[in-house]
């Protein structure tokens, strides 16, 4: 029932505690934390490391998109609690980017809805990644696998 877009890091333990506190109808809580992974790119004969990226977003639209995605998940599964926190700005390898948490009486719904939200975030929320490569900053191209992952929800019953 909460979405937040922020530059600051988040405290996973505190977020989950606040999300589930006092709700005794939750039997399963599924959580996804997306992290900046250390990447390597080929640069001539060498492989060079990418240590950071900057996440641009569309203030205003981002919040609306996250609320829409969350509403869609709540329509498909019986959920007791949902939380999406997405960061923007410069992020170094190892840093947290996104937190998605879903609480439901049943674990199947918690897993299904959490994976749905993560897949949809990748394709429906207005974020763009700019990687710091040795040859300069480079915008990340969309990943076909993400579209495929999101599309399977179009045909699949919740």
């Amino acid at each position, binding site marked *: 029932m909460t979405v937040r877009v922020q530059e600051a890091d988040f405290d996973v333990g505190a977020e989950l505690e606040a999300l589930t506190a006092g709700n005794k109808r939750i039997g399963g809580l599924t959580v996804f934390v997306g992290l900046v992974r250390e990447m390597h790119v080929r640069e001539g004969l060498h492989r060079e490391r990418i240590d950071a990226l900057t996440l641009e977003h569309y203030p205003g639209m981002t919040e609306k998109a996250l609320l829409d995605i969350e509403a869609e998940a709540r329509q498909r599964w019986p959920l007791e609690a949902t939380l999406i926190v997405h960061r923007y700005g410069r992020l170094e390898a190892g840093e947290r980017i996104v937190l998605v948490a879903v609480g439901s009486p049943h674990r199947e719904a918690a897993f299904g809805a959490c994976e749905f939200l993560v897949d949809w975030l990748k394709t429906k929320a207005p974020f763009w990644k*700019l990687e710091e490569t040795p040859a300069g900053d480079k915008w990340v191209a969309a990943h076909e696998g993400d579209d495929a992952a999101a599309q399977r929800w179009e045909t699949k019953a919740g």
Partner: protein
Amino acid sequence: MRIRYFAWMKRTVGAADEEVALPENVKTVGDLVAFLRARSPGHAEALAEGAAFGAAVDQRTATFDVPIAGAREVAFFPPFTGG
């Protein structure tokens, strides 16, 4: 109307946003794209036919047939890569 650009489209166009006065025959997102292409070579490149970009009208994703009458802002952006 306020037009906004994101990610690499910002640099190709040469601006993050601009105010444009639209002629009456510009009624949809598709009309707007055609109209903007004529503004500069950068616009033409960023909004080229066949280029992979999306649009939003007043901050909701919109296809090319969506009307823009009364909208406050229209945005153009490359495919999302967040999450």
